[in-house]
C-alpha cells in the first residue's frame, strides 16, 4: 500500500517535471529496403514555444537522411528562421537543426510537427532514431523542460527473384513425393 502510494507520487512528480514531449513519429516504423520515407519530429503538450533545436541519430548501415525541412508548427506563430542542421550519413547524425520565431511575439501553444526528415532505407535491420541536444525556449527565452521519445525503424530486405527460384525446386519435389505417396 505504502509502495503503491509512493509510486503514485513519483509518477505525478515525473509527469509534472516535464512540460510536454518531443517525439519521433511514426514509430515504430516498418519499411522496405530502398524505400524513402519521412520522419516527423513532433511536439505535444508544450506551451509558448518560441524556438527549438535538436540532434537526431540513426543507424547509418540501414538508413540515410537526405533532407530536413521546417514543419508547420512554429511557422504558425509567425515568421521564423530555420536552420536545417548538418546531415552526416557516415556517422548517422543530423546535428543542430533549429528554428526560431522572429520578433517580439508570443510562442506557439499547440501540438504539431517541428521538422520533417526525409530518409531512405538502405539495408535490412532495425535501428533506433534518437533525439539529443534538445533545446526548447519559450518567448522569454527560458528553457522548457520536455520529455523526449525516441523512435525506431525496422527495414526488411526485398526477396531477390533468384533466391525465390531456388525455393521452387525443393517445394516442387515435396509436392511430387506427396503425390506419389497418395497414389501408393
Amino acid at each position, binding site marked *: 500500500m505504502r509502495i503503491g502510494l509512493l509510486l503514485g507520487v513519483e509518477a505525478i512528480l515525473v509527469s509534472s517535471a516535464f512540460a510536454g514531449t518531443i517525439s519521433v513519429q511514426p514509430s515504430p516504423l516498418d519499411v522496405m529496403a530502398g524505400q524513402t520515407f519521412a520522419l516527423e519530429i513532433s511536439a505535444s503538450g508544450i506551451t509558448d514555444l518560441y524556438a527549438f533545436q535538436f540532434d537526431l541519430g540513426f543507424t547509418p548501415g540501414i538508413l540515410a537522411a537526405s533532407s530536413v525541412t521546417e514543419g508547420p508548427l512554429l511557422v504558425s506563430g509567425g515568421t521564423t528562421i530555420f536552420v536545417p542542421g548538418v546531415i552526416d550519413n557516415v556517422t548517422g547524425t543530423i546535428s*543542430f537543426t*533549429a528554428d*526560431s520565431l*522572429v*520578433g517580439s511575439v508570443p510562442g506557439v501553444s499547440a501540438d504539431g510537427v517541428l521538422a520533417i526528415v526525409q530518409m531512405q532505407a538502405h539495408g535490412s535491420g532495425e535501428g533506433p532514431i534518437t533525439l539529443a541536444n534538445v533545446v526548447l*525556449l519559450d518567448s522569454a527565452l527560458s528553457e522548457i523542460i520536455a520529455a523526449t521519445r525516441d523512435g525506431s525503424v525496422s527495414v526488411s530486405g526485398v526477396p531477390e527473384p533468384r533466391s525465390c527460384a531456388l525455393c521452387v525446386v525443393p517445394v516442387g519435389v515435396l509436392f511430387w513425393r506427396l503425390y506419389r505417396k497418395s497414389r501408393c
Partner: protein
Amino acid sequence: MVFCVEAGLCGTSGQAQVQVNRTGNAQYEYRVQNVAGQPIVRVKVGIDEASSGNPELLTTPLGWDFDSGSGSLAAPAGWTGGVETLEESAYFNLVWTRSGRAISQGETLGGFVVSLPVADNRYRTAHWTILRADGTITTGTLQPTEPVIAGDVNSDGVVNCADIAIIKAGFGKKAGDAQFDARADVNNDGVIDVRDLSFVSQKLSTGTKCP
C-alpha cells in the same frame, strides 16, 4: 588626438589613454597612448574575475587558471609582461614593464595581447595604472566607448539579418573549432546554438524575413 573611437573599452586620465579591444575569441589587445608628459615606463591593467563595477561587462568568472598558468601574455618588443595579483583577489593585474623602451609623449604603443583560456566575449578590464619615468602614477577606469546594442553581432549599430547570417554561418560550432565566430556566441557559453539565434531573432522587427 583621436584614439578612443573604436568599440571597446577606453579610459583617459592624466594625459594618458588606455584602450582595450577584442581582437579574437578570448583575445584582447591593449593600447596605451601617452598624450603628454613624461615617458610611460610601466602599464598595469586590472581584469576583474567576478562581477563588480559594471555589471554589463563583469558578469561571469574570467576563467584564468593561475595555478596552471593557462592563458598567455604577449608584450610588444622591448616590454615584458606578467601577472601580478594572486588568485585570492577578486581581480588580477596584467603588468607590462619597460625594458629599454618607454612610451614617449605623443606615442601610442599597441600590441599588448592577452589570450584568455576560455571563450569570452565580454570585456572585463576595469582599471589601469600608468607609471611615468619621473615616478608619477596615474590611474583610471575603462568604460565602453560605444553603447552595446544587444544582438548587434557585427557591431554595425543595428540588429538585422546580417547578424542572423553570422550566427547561421557558425551554427553548431564550438569554441576551438576553426569556424567558431565568437561574435555569434552571444550568450558566451562556448557554442553557437539556438539560444544565440533566438536572442538575436527576437530583437528583429516582427515579420522580418531573413534568407
